[in-house]
């Protein structure tokens, strides 16, 4: 008669496992270790990957950054060693005359001591002077108020947008920072917005000013130190072509050789992203290789131990046969024992592996540890369940064949073993 749970059989199995503590322990450890290591490896891999991804996703994926440099090649009668400076016109060329670019912004650098005062507090923060579209490039998230707009740029308005951590430090007791005035390097600016950012902490300790206002107030003329532009293209070839066109039009405008790589520094994070993807592809491949290795070691371990167990129990099998055990009941006993053992220890491996990963994530969260290279480790349950499945199947196969062999040799032979 079929019974859903053969209580007697399980009693036999538990009994047998209890009586053979060492081999039970060894089997359990080899399975546990395989699963545990796989989870730790994949978790560590994903932690590394997620942290790198965070850095990329913080800014627009395909952004060009341009800085002026010094020419290194003679061009049209001009000697090398000429500094290339950008002006407001260069930004206008990017914004109005260049095809394929989505968002553009200039940055005018504020050198020296950026002392910011509010009431009795005076602190130093990073200042960035930008165009309205900079918010889209940097993926700045407005929490309150607004970001810089075109009217600010055109009318040279003395307004500023503060990071939420600036607010926390500079005006912790201010219930509504919007409309307050802060003193930036001696000039009063009105707060019009508060922002946050998904990137690292430093991104939220910044103050944004309209670029034109900054140029005027801090006597920058029409200098622009850095140009930024994003493209919505996700094609490498197209991106490289666009980069080349950008270089050529800037070369024409500023009279330098387009082949002169030091005249301007033109950099695109999409190329980095590609490199990153290749690198993480390789890292993942390596982690999988090691992970599968540890699973394989587990499989071999289980197979070995099952072989020994069956050999060890040949006499017992003979005795059981003499008492009326069918080959089927013997095979079933050994295989069930093996599945039970590998299943349980694999499950503990899953729990402890996930436990450690989760604990790590929890601790990092709780103590606000920000590691640049490690972020939100996670492991796909599907992967782990497949690994567990493989180990259990290995246990079945490893148990089945020797058990079948042992069950078919004659009882006398088995008993004399």
């Amino acid at each position, binding site marked *: 008669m079929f019974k859903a749970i053969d209580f007697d059989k399980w009693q036999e199995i538990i009994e047998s496992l209890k009586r053979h503590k060492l081999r039970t322990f060894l089997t359990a450890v080899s399975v546990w270790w395989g699963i545990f290591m796989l989870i730790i490896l994949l978790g560590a891999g994903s932690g590394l990957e997620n942290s790198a991804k965070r850095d990329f996703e913080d800014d627009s994926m395909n952004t060009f950054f341009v800085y002026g440099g010094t020419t290194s090649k003679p061009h049209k009668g001009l000697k090398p060693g000429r500094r290339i400076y950008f002006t407001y016109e260069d930004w206008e060329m990017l914004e109005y005359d260049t095809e394929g670019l989505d968002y553009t912004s200039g940055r005018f650098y504020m050198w020296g001591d950026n002392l910011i005062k509010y009431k009795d507090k005076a602190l130093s923060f990073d200042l960035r002077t930008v165009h309205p579209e900079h918010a889209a490039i940097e993926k700045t998230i407005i929490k309150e108020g607004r970001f810089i707009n075109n009217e600010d740029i055109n009318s040279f308005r003395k307004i500023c947008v503060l990071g939420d951590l600036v607010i926390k430090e500079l005006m912790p007791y201010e219930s509504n920072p919007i409309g307050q005035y802060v003193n930036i390097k001696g000039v009063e600016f009105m707060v019009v917005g508060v922002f946050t950012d998904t990137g690292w902490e430093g991104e939220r300790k910044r103050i944004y000013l309209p670029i034109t206002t900054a140029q005027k107030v801090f006597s920058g003329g029409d200098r622009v130190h850095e140009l930024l532009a994003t493209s919505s293209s996700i094609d490498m070839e197209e991106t490289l072509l666009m980069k080349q066109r950008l270089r050529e039009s800037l070369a024409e405008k500023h009279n330098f050789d387009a082949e002169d790589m030091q005249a301007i520094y033109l950099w695109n994070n999409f190329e980095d992203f590609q490199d990153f993807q290749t690198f993480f592809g390789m890292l993942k491949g390596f982690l999988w290789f090691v992970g599968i290795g540890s699973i394989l070691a587990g499989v071999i371990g289980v197979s070995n131990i099952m072989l020994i167990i069956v050999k060890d129990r040949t006499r017992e099998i003979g005795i059981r046969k003499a008492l009326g055990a069918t*080959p089927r009941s013997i095979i079933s006993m050994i295989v069930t024992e093996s599945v039970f053992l590998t299943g349980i220890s694999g499950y503990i491996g899953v729990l402890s592996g996930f436990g450690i990963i989760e604990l790590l994530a929890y601790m990092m969260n709780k103590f606000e540890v920000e590691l640049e290279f490690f972020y939100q480790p996670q492991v796909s349950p599907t992967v782990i369940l497949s690994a567990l499945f493989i180990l259990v199947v290995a246990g079945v196969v490893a148990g089945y064949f020797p058990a079948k062999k042992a069950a078919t040799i004659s009882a006398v032979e088995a008993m004399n073993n």
Partner: protein
Amino acid sequence: MIKIKNIRKSYTTGTNTLEVLKGVNMQVEQGELVSIMGSSGSGKSTLLNVMGLLDTYDSGAYHLNDVKMEGLSEKEAAFYRNRFLGFVFQSFNLLPFKSALENVALPLYYQKVNRKERLKKAEQYLERVGLLNWKDHFPNEMSGGQKQRVAIARALITEPKVVLADEPTGALDSVTSEEIMGLFKEVHEEGMTMIVVTHENEIAARTQRVIRLTDGLVQTQVPIL
């Protein structure tokens, strides 16, 4: 109860073929206590194994309880071993990791008797061999005689048709051997058919009939009484 007709059995090791049973004829009636004697290599253990369905034979015919034992599958052989036969071995063959009680109960496990019932019945049989106080002891905590008593209780628990004993006193001293044979006699007097393989005359002398085996053939069948 047991009818053996012209049974032959040979073993092949490498290129050598060794014929162990060369056409054995014998018969055991219900309720008999029979001994099979012979020197080592005479084929007496092989014969017992064939009777116990622990080993196969090459040709001839074997009837157990009027059922012809031929071309049995492993499953059928297991069924007959479980229902018709009880074994007592020279080396006891108890499972070392099971208590005396569990060892006795084990054959009933293969009859799918539930645990409670099995253990209850095993207690009765342990009491029958005088070892109820030892039910929770493991084989390594017992003397040879005690272990053999447990093995006898295990052989009897399924109420088999025949008890087959292979040198049951071979590992025991003479006093203990005497006790075991006394127990065999008691069981026999209750109507059990028993076959004892031995090479000791004193043991054979305590059975009703001796079958002498020499070089794979039955030499004489001497009734003692």
